Protein backbone atom coordinates (compact mmCIF):
# COMPACT_ATOMS: atom_id res chain seq x y z
CA UNK A 1 0.00 0.00 0.00
CA UNK A 2 1.44 3.32 -1.00
CA UNK A 3 -0.15 6.74 -0.81
CA UNK A 4 1.32 10.01 -2.01
CA UNK A 5 -0.06 13.40 -1.20
CA UNK A 6 0.13 16.93 -2.59
CA UNK A 7 -1.75 20.07 -1.71
CA UNK A 8 -3.08 22.31 -4.43
CA UNK A 9 -5.16 25.40 -3.75
CA UNK A 10 -7.61 24.47 -1.04
CA UNK A 11 -7.49 20.72 -1.51
CA UNK A 12 -5.23 17.88 -0.52
CA UNK A 13 -4.83 15.30 -3.25
CA UNK A 14 -4.09 11.79 -2.02
CA UNK A 15 -3.06 9.38 -4.76
CA UNK A 16 -3.45 5.64 -4.26
CA UNK A 17 -0.46 3.92 -5.85
CA UNK A 18 -2.02 0.49 -6.07
CA UNK A 19 -3.99 -1.49 -8.63
CA UNK A 20 -6.44 -2.79 -6.06
CA UNK A 21 -8.09 -1.81 -2.82
CA UNK A 22 -9.37 -5.15 -1.57
CA UNK A 23 -9.69 -7.32 1.53
CA UNK A 24 -5.93 -7.91 1.68
CA UNK A 25 -5.09 -4.23 2.19
CA UNK A 26 -8.31 -2.61 3.44
CA UNK A 27 -7.20 -2.21 7.07
CA UNK A 28 -3.77 -0.90 6.04
CA UNK A 29 -5.40 1.54 3.64
CA UNK A 30 -7.60 2.95 6.40
CA UNK A 31 -4.59 3.44 8.71
CA UNK A 32 -2.43 4.97 5.97
CA UNK A 33 -5.25 7.35 5.07
CA UNK A 34 -5.54 8.44 8.69
CA UNK A 35 -1.81 9.30 8.78
CA UNK A 36 -1.84 10.93 5.37
CA UNK A 37 -4.85 13.19 5.89
CA UNK A 38 -4.25 14.19 9.51
CA UNK A 39 -4.24 17.99 9.80
CA UNK A 40 -4.66 18.49 6.04
CA UNK A 41 -6.97 20.67 3.97
CA UNK A 42 -10.73 20.62 4.47
CA UNK A 43 -11.21 19.04 1.06
CA UNK A 44 -9.48 15.76 0.29
CA UNK A 45 -9.49 14.46 -3.27
CA UNK A 46 -8.77 10.75 -3.37
CA UNK A 47 -7.10 10.05 -6.72
CA UNK A 48 -8.03 6.50 -7.76
CA UNK A 49 -6.59 6.67 -11.30
CA UNK A 50 -4.21 3.78 -10.62
CA UNK A 51 -6.87 1.60 -9.02
CA UNK A 52 -8.43 -0.96 -11.36
CA UNK A 53 -10.37 -3.02 -8.87
CA UNK A 54 -12.16 -2.53 -5.58
CA UNK A 55 -14.18 -5.00 -3.52
CA UNK A 56 -16.67 -4.46 -0.68
CA UNK A 57 -13.83 -4.38 1.87
CA UNK A 58 -12.07 -1.68 -0.12
CA UNK A 59 -15.30 0.24 -0.44
CA UNK A 60 -15.76 0.02 3.33
CA UNK A 61 -12.21 1.26 3.84
CA UNK A 62 -12.84 4.33 1.67
CA UNK A 63 -16.03 5.07 3.65
CA UNK A 64 -14.02 4.67 6.86
CA UNK A 65 -11.32 7.03 5.56
CA UNK A 66 -13.99 9.61 4.78
CA UNK A 67 -15.55 9.27 8.25
CA UNK A 68 -12.13 9.73 9.86
CA UNK A 69 -12.03 13.23 8.39
CA UNK A 70 -14.88 14.35 10.65
CA UNK A 71 -17.86 16.49 9.76
CA UNK A 72 -15.98 19.69 8.82
CA UNK A 73 -13.95 18.09 6.02
CA UNK A 74 -15.05 16.27 2.88
CA UNK A 75 -13.68 13.62 0.57
CA UNK A 76 -14.20 13.56 -3.19
CA UNK A 77 -13.17 10.70 -5.48
CA UNK A 78 -11.44 11.13 -8.82
CA UNK A 79 -10.27 8.95 -11.70
CA UNK A 80 -12.56 5.98 -11.20
CA UNK A 81 -11.99 3.03 -13.53
CA UNK A 82 -15.13 1.40 -14.98
CA UNK A 83 -15.05 -1.39 -12.40
CA UNK A 84 -14.52 0.94 -9.44
CA UNK A 85 -17.23 3.26 -10.74
CA UNK A 86 -19.63 0.30 -11.04
CA UNK A 87 -19.13 -0.72 -7.40
CA UNK A 88 -19.84 2.82 -6.20
CA UNK A 89 -22.96 3.15 -8.33
CA UNK A 90 -24.40 -0.29 -7.53
CA UNK A 91 -24.09 0.33 -3.79
CA UNK A 92 -25.47 3.88 -4.21
CA UNK A 93 -22.28 5.26 -2.70
CA UNK A 94 -22.28 7.71 -5.61
CA UNK A 95 -24.93 9.54 -3.57
CA UNK A 96 -22.50 9.90 -0.65
CA UNK A 97 -19.36 10.93 -2.52
CA UNK A 98 -18.86 13.36 -5.39
CA UNK A 99 -17.29 11.32 -8.19
CA UNK A 100 -15.08 12.88 -10.88
CA UNK A 101 -13.95 11.06 -14.00
CA UNK A 102 -10.47 12.54 -13.72
CA UNK A 103 -8.26 14.37 -11.26
CA UNK A 104 -8.31 17.42 -13.54
CA UNK A 105 -12.07 17.55 -13.36
CA UNK A 106 -11.98 17.31 -9.59
CA UNK A 107 -9.44 20.09 -9.15
CA UNK A 108 -11.25 22.31 -11.64
CA UNK A 109 -14.33 22.11 -9.43
CA UNK A 110 -13.90 23.98 -6.20
CA UNK A 111 -16.84 22.86 -4.13
CA UNK A 112 -16.33 24.47 -0.78
Amino acid at each position, binding site marked *: MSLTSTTTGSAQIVTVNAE*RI*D*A*TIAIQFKEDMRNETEGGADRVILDLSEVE*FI*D*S*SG*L*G*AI*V*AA*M*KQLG*SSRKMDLAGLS*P*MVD*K*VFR*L*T*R*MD*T*VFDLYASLNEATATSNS
Partner: protein
Amino acid sequence: MVNTFAYSFLATELNARSGIGSVVERLRTMGLPEARAEEVQIALAEAVNNVVEHAYAGTDPGDVNIRCNLDADQLWINIHDAGLPLPDDKLPEGKPVDLNVPHADLPEGGFGWFLIRELTSDIHYERKSGNNQLSLRFEVSASAPLG
Protein backbone atom coordinates in the same frame (compact mmCIF):
# COMPACT_ATOMS: atom_id res chain seq x y z
CA MET B 1 -21.22 -25.54 -27.40
CA VAL B 2 -20.48 -25.51 -23.69
CA ASN B 3 -17.07 -24.65 -22.36
CA THR B 4 -16.27 -25.98 -18.92
CA PHE B 5 -13.25 -25.64 -16.72
CA ALA B 6 -12.41 -25.99 -13.06
CA TYR B 7 -9.97 -24.15 -10.84
CA SER B 8 -9.03 -24.83 -7.22
CA PHE B 9 -6.91 -23.04 -4.65
CA LEU B 10 -6.31 -22.92 -0.92
CA ALA B 11 -8.60 -20.37 0.73
CA THR B 12 -6.20 -17.55 1.61
CA GLU B 13 -6.65 -13.90 0.69
CA LEU B 14 -3.66 -13.89 -1.67
CA ASN B 15 -4.65 -17.16 -3.36
CA ALA B 16 -8.18 -15.83 -3.74
CA ARG B 17 -6.90 -12.70 -5.47
CA SER B 18 -4.78 -14.58 -8.00
CA GLY B 19 -7.32 -17.40 -8.40
CA ILE B 20 -10.15 -15.01 -9.24
CA GLY B 21 -7.88 -13.19 -11.67
CA SER B 22 -7.05 -16.48 -13.42
CA VAL B 23 -10.68 -17.57 -13.68
CA VAL B 24 -11.85 -14.24 -15.10
CA GLU B 25 -8.93 -14.08 -17.53
CA ARG B 26 -9.81 -17.53 -18.81
CA LEU B 27 -13.46 -16.49 -19.27
CA ARG B 28 -12.26 -13.49 -21.29
CA THR B 29 -10.23 -15.70 -23.60
CA MET B 30 -13.32 -17.92 -23.98
CA GLY B 31 -15.21 -14.91 -25.31
CA LEU B 32 -17.03 -13.41 -22.33
CA PRO B 33 -17.58 -9.72 -23.18
CA GLU B 34 -15.36 -7.33 -21.24
CA ALA B 35 -18.16 -5.48 -19.44
CA ARG B 36 -19.63 -8.77 -18.24
CA ALA B 37 -16.20 -10.10 -17.27
CA GLU B 38 -15.78 -7.11 -14.97
CA GLU B 39 -19.10 -7.79 -13.28
CA VAL B 40 -18.23 -11.46 -12.89
CA GLN B 41 -14.95 -10.43 -11.28
CA ILE B 42 -16.73 -8.21 -8.74
CA ALA B 43 -19.32 -10.87 -7.82
CA LEU B 44 -16.81 -13.72 -7.73
CA ALA B 45 -14.45 -11.72 -5.52
CA GLU B 46 -17.26 -11.14 -3.01
CA ALA B 47 -18.33 -14.80 -3.02
CA VAL B 48 -14.78 -16.11 -2.60
CA ASN B 49 -13.93 -13.50 0.06
CA ASN B 50 -16.90 -14.80 2.03
CA VAL B 51 -15.46 -18.31 1.88
CA VAL B 52 -12.01 -17.10 2.98
CA GLU B 53 -13.27 -14.82 5.76
CA HIS B 54 -16.32 -16.71 7.07
CA ALA B 55 -16.58 -20.32 5.89
CA TYR B 56 -12.99 -21.08 6.93
CA ALA B 57 -12.98 -18.65 9.84
CA GLY B 58 -11.05 -19.94 12.84
CA THR B 59 -9.76 -23.05 11.10
CA ASP B 60 -6.96 -23.93 8.74
CA PRO B 61 -8.07 -22.83 5.28
CA GLY B 62 -9.38 -25.58 3.01
CA ASP B 63 -9.90 -25.60 -0.71
CA VAL B 64 -12.09 -23.37 -2.82
CA ASN B 65 -13.24 -25.21 -5.93
CA ILE B 66 -14.58 -23.16 -8.80
CA ARG B 67 -16.25 -24.63 -11.86
CA CYS B 68 -17.37 -22.53 -14.80
CA ASN B 69 -19.84 -23.48 -17.52
CA LEU B 70 -20.01 -20.99 -20.35
CA ASP B 71 -22.30 -21.26 -23.35
CA ALA B 72 -23.53 -18.70 -25.85
CA ASP B 73 -26.24 -17.35 -23.53
CA GLN B 74 -25.23 -17.88 -19.97
CA LEU B 75 -22.40 -18.47 -17.57
CA TRP B 76 -22.78 -20.60 -14.46
CA ILE B 77 -20.09 -20.41 -11.82
CA ASN B 78 -20.19 -23.01 -9.05
CA ILE B 79 -18.16 -22.39 -5.93
CA HIS B 80 -17.64 -25.28 -3.51
CA ASP B 81 -15.94 -25.27 -0.13
CA ALA B 82 -15.81 -27.51 2.94
CA GLY B 83 -16.09 -24.70 5.48
CA LEU B 84 -18.81 -23.56 7.86
CA PRO B 85 -22.33 -23.22 6.43
CA LEU B 86 -23.95 -19.89 5.76
CA PRO B 87 -25.97 -18.62 8.75
CA ASP B 88 -29.20 -20.68 9.03
CA ASP B 89 -28.04 -22.67 5.99
CA LYS B 90 -29.45 -20.09 3.65
CA LEU B 91 -28.46 -17.20 1.45
CA PRO B 92 -28.34 -13.80 3.17
CA GLU B 93 -30.94 -11.38 1.92
CA GLY B 94 -28.34 -8.92 0.71
CA LYS B 95 -30.47 -5.87 1.30
CA PRO B 96 -29.10 -2.51 0.20
CA VAL B 97 -27.36 -0.63 2.99
CA ASP B 98 -29.11 2.38 4.48
CA LEU B 99 -27.29 5.49 3.31
CA ASN B 100 -29.89 7.90 4.60
CA VAL B 101 -27.94 8.50 7.82
CA PRO B 102 -25.41 11.06 9.09
CA HIS B 103 -21.95 10.54 7.57
CA ALA B 104 -20.57 9.38 10.92
CA ASP B 105 -23.03 6.46 10.87
CA LEU B 106 -22.45 5.30 7.28
CA PRO B 107 -21.91 1.55 6.98
CA GLU B 108 -18.37 0.29 6.33
CA GLY B 109 -19.50 -3.21 5.39
CA GLY B 110 -22.50 -5.31 4.46
CA PHE B 111 -22.16 -4.62 0.74
CA GLY B 112 -21.02 -8.09 -0.36
CA TRP B 113 -24.20 -10.09 -0.78
CA PHE B 114 -26.02 -7.09 -2.15
CA LEU B 115 -23.38 -6.77 -4.89
CA ILE B 116 -23.58 -10.50 -5.65
CA ARG B 117 -27.37 -10.34 -5.96
CA GLU B 118 -27.26 -7.21 -8.13
CA LEU B 119 -24.69 -8.66 -10.53
CA THR B 120 -26.14 -12.15 -10.99
CA SER B 121 -29.35 -13.17 -12.72
CA ASP B 122 -29.76 -16.30 -10.62
CA ILE B 123 -28.22 -17.63 -7.44
CA HIS B 124 -28.48 -20.97 -5.60
CA TYR B 125 -27.05 -22.23 -2.36
CA GLU B 126 -27.01 -25.75 -1.02
CA ARG B 127 -25.40 -27.28 2.04
CA LYS B 128 -24.60 -30.85 1.16
CA SER B 129 -22.40 -33.46 2.87
CA GLY B 130 -20.53 -30.81 4.83
CA ASN B 131 -19.90 -28.69 1.75
CA ASN B 132 -21.15 -25.31 0.66
CA GLN B 133 -22.28 -25.21 -2.95
CA LEU B 134 -22.96 -21.76 -4.28
CA SER B 135 -24.01 -21.28 -7.91
CA LEU B 136 -24.08 -17.94 -9.66
CA ARG B 137 -25.64 -17.37 -13.08
CA PHE B 138 -24.78 -14.51 -15.41
CA GLU B 139 -26.19 -13.57 -18.79
CA VAL B 140 -23.41 -13.59 -21.36
CA SER B 141 -24.69 -10.73 -23.49
CA ALA B 142 -23.38 -7.53 -21.98
CA SER B 143 -26.53 -5.73 -23.04
CA ALA B 144 -28.83 -8.01 -21.04
CA PRO B 145 -30.28 -6.29 -17.99
CA LEU B 146 -28.81 -6.92 -14.58
CA GLY B 147 -30.56 -9.02 -11.97
